[in-house]
């Protein structure tokens, strides 16, 4: 191609890239919801688990601790923070212990007669009132007098205190200086955000708001504010992943550029060979913006990593250039093999699509589109741009020596048998469980953050996160009724110390039926006034003192029963709303459990209830989720493997040659698995993903080593290309292996090991050149 048309092609290509870039910038919406990288739930329990993990009130809770100053100062800071955040729209609840959790909203106070169990057993008659008033008189002469002096005129029977006792959490932190303190002398706060827990963007805003409010407080300079909770974690994960990916990306890019310059000694080749990759990335993102409403940030991060395979295509072309030969010709000779490699990689990545996990599906679309674009642009566009004159790498002295060494390597037929035996042995004696089923292990969270969270949760008396008692009924009221009938059995369990506490929805709100029954028992104004006057005979109380009480009872007689919807405006109502969930035309009540000592007894609550009451083990549900997920990936991989064998056999038109390609690849894959298992690593889904990537790279090595041209120079070029590919892969993934984020590390380590094993085994198991010639 002449210089001018070359220039035009380059400009058109660049313009096309700019167009794609513009389209992407207009359409790309990055999502950060980490759940798209979790397996899709299939059973009702799993779905409940995912909801609780994402939007449930628990996931919107931020746990705050303030430390590093004397108690009074910490308490002042805690109070100041609550005052600053209270009316902020980003937070639905801010509490620090300086409140009566049991306190009813003033507007709901008359409801106390419908909510408190008193009327179930005790009418508001003269006998009861005189007994109560006598007790109040005793109270007034006791040290507790100032506690109830204000309450007395409105609530002489202390229903509000009975409700407070009923609603008091089983365990709450120590209150010092009027606010919560942990045993480690930190002031503790709970903040519930309006935003969902796994929406790191909105969580970031909420967290920034808290930090700003804190730093604006006088005296906050010396004190330390620490956060925890799912929302905070999602922000930290996002920031950490971005930070590490940037850092690793920069270092490996520099290394990569240096490597290619060293290998090809040509700037223009280097710059031009970046075009297919750039096209691949942009086309991949563009495809995502068309196929999905939003693109996950992790998809892009992992996607560009996986696109590393595509970097091989231009490298192969560059290494296989011959002196004086047109680049188009070199590519034409390579193309059948390159096409096989592209097709195989695409098949392997299809397995991600079959996993059913949204994030992995996106990853599959991105990488497959990217690989195809990179491959075809390498074949049909790049060669027309490459400089005509190149140095033939086949003439390099070190390469000749290297090829000589490789050719003389012994390639005994027993090598595959030996390696296979070693793999079986290592897998057999490897320590620990084979699979990592813990969903938490997939969440890239540092251990110390989890420990800090566990400590705060324990101090704040947050319920056990493992078990939930599920109550199911056709209606909301049905759930509450079920909860009411269950309460005596639950009380018995708590008395037997099978559990420390079990918090049922009806604890916060009785059924409408029960409220109406209580309402019926309230005396009318005249009757109550008469009873009260009689009871007051001979008592020192001021005559008109109890008018507010009479008024409240009169109001309570007319009230519509309290429903969860009406209740929802108050903090307690929100707590109730968190435990009532509508699902598929029925309602679920969630009973939170703390301090489980006897799971069997707890599970027995569900006996003979036809499944309307059951104990949900969130850990078991999450593990079953992971097992399902893995089974599906493994099935998809099996299908992909069969397809791969067929594709390679068809492309090479020989089962024997296919064996030479597939055997080293398969052995190397299992060898990585065996070595990681021997190192005590439990295999997670991310290891599987990384094994697939390494397999794709290994396939290239085997394909090219197997290719027998009978031309020693061409074989030297093959070796050159493969060495450059191996070194660049080791560079990029070796860097990833240094990451502190478990997922990145799992991928980095697995791919690095894989690349090394694939390289060695494809050399050792390649058909011997001389043998082939015989």
């Amino acid at each position, binding site marked *: 191609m002449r210089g001018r048309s070359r220039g035009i092609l380059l400009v058109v290509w660049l313009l096309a890239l700019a167009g794609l870039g513009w389209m992407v910038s207009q359409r790309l919406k990055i999502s950060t919801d980490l759940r798209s990288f979790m397996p899709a739930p299939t059973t009702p329990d799993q779905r409940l688990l995912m909801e609780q993990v994402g939007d449930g009130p628990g996931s919107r809770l931020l746990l705050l601790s303030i430390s590093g100053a004397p108690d009074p100062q910490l308490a002042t800071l805690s109070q100041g923070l609550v005052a600053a955040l209270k009316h902020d729209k980003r937070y639905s609840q801010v509490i620090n212990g300086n409140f009566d959790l049991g306190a009813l909203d003033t507007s709901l106070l008359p409801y106390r007669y419908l909510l408190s169990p008193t009327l179930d057993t005790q009418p508001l008659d003269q006998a009861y009132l005189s007994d109560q008033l006598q007790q109040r008189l005793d109270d007034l*002469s006791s040290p507790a007098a*100032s506690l109830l002096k204000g309450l007395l005129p409105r609530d002489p029977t202390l229903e509000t205190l009975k409700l407070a006792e009923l609603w008091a959490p089983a365990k709450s932190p120590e209150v010092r200086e009027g606010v919560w303190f942990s045993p480690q002398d930190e002031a503790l706060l709970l903040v519930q955000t309006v935003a969902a827990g796994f929406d790191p963007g909105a969580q970031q805003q909420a967290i920034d708001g808290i930090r700003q409010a804190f730093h604006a407080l006088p005296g906050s300079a010396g004190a330390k504010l620490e956060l925890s909770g799912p929302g905070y974690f999602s922000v930290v994960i996002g920031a950490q992943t971005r930070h590490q990916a940037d850092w690793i990306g920069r270092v490996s890019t520099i290394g990569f550029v240096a490597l290619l310059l060293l290998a090809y000694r040509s700037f223009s080749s280097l710059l031009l060979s970046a075009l297919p990759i750039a096209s691949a990335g942009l086309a991949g993102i563009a495809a995502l913006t068309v196929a999905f409403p939003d693109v996950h940030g992790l998809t892009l991060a992992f996607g560009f990593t996986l696109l590393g395979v595509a970097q091989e295509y231009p490298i192969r072309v560059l290494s296989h250039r011959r002196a004086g030969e047109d680049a188009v010709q070199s590519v034409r000779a390579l193309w059948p093999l390159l096409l096989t490699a592209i097709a195989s990689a695409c098949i392997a990545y299809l397995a991600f699509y079959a996993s059913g996990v949204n994030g992995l599906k996106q990853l599959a679309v991105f990488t497959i589109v990217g690989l195809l674009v990179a491959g075809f642009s390498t074949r049909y566009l790049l060669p027309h741009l490459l400089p005509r004159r190149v140095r033939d790498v086949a003439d390099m002295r070190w390469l000749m020596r290297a090829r000589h060494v490789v050719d003389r390597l012994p390639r005994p037929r027993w090598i595959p048998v030996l390696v296979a035996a070693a793999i079986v042995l290592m897998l057999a004696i490897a320590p620990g469980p084979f699979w990592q089923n813990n969903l938490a292990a997939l969440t890239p969270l540092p251990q110390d953050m989890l420990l800090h969270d566990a400590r705060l949760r324990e101090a704040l008396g947050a319920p056990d996160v493992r078990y939930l008692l599920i109550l199911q009924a056709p209606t909301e009221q049905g759930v509450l009724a079920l909860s009411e009938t269950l309460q005596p059995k639950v009380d018995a369990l708590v008395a037997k110390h099978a559990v420390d506490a079990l918090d049922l929805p009806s604890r916060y709100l009785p059924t409408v039926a029960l409220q109406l029954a209580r309402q019926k028992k309230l005396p009318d104004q005249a009757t109550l006034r008469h009873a009260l006057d009689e009871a007051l005979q001979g008592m*020192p109380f001021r005559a008109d003192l109890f008018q507010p009480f009479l008024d409240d009872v009169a109001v309570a007689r007319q009230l519509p029963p309290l429903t969860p919807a009406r209740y929802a405006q108050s903090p307690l109502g929100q707590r109730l709303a968190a435990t009532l969930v509508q699902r598929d035309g029925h309602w679920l009540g969630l009973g939170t459990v703390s301090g489980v000592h006897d799971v069997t007894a707890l599970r027995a609550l569900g006996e003979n209830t036809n499944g309307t009451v059951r104990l949900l083990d969130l850990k078991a549900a999450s593990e079953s989720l992971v097992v399902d997920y893995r089974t599906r990936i493994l099935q998809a991989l099996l299908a992909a493997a069969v397809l791969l064998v067929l594709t390679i056999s068809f492309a090479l038109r020989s089962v024997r040659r296919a064996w030479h390609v597939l055997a080293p690849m398969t052995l190397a894959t299992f060898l990585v698995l065996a070595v990681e298992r021997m190192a005590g690593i439990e295999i997670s889904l991310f290891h599987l993903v990384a094994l697939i990537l390494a397999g794709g790279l290994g396939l290239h090595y085997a394909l090219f080593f197997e290719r027998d041209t009978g031309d020693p120079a061409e074989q030297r070029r093959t070796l050159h290309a493969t060495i450059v590919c191996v070194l660049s892969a080791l560079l990029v993934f070796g860097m990833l292996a240094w990451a502190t984020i478990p997922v990145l590390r799992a991928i980095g380590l697995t791919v690095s090991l894989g690349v090394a094993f694939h390289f060695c085994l494809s050399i050792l198991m390649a058909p011997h050149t001389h043998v082939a010639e015989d």
Partner: protein
Amino acid sequence: MLSLTLPLWASASASEPAAPSSAHTLIAALGHPAPAHTAFAEARFMQVLDRPLVVSGELSWLGGDKLQRRVDKPQAETATIADGEVTQERVGKSPRHFSLKRAPQLQVLLDSFVALLSGDAGRLQQAFDVRQTGDIDGAWTLMLTPLDARVAKTIASITVEGNTKESRCMFMQEADGDLTIDLLGVLASRMPAAPTREGLQALCRDTH
């Protein structure tokens, strides 16, 4: 007599706020080794009531921050303050617990009583603004105003009156106007059946 002493008081507290050293001397002189017990009779004048509530029993400082208030009449009841928690026990009922933080009245009682009974002037001055009239040789008055703004919202002031080494009366003035008067020691037996504020004040000052 009241008319005579009141102006005197007022002028005394206004004109000569006690020097810290003399308050130290007085309070130190009042100290007893733990456990210290004293009989008390208490009258509460409250807005919610037409007539005052009267109880009597024994106050004990058990050492440290442990204080016990035992009521014998009209109904047996014991309140114990220990480790920031109040335990209230009444015959035939299960004990009630609440945090000291929720009962500023008790916090004040604890601070003032323990300090007085232990003779710890420093502690007293940590919790209160202390004003003194008279001294250990004769009749004296300690007027304590809580320094903690939150406590002051409930308890306006405490006045302790005494003669030589003996505390005779304690007046707890609440911010809402309610008043509690405790007659201490030998004076406890002289609580009238129908006490009035003025009558009790006179009784306190009547050292004969």
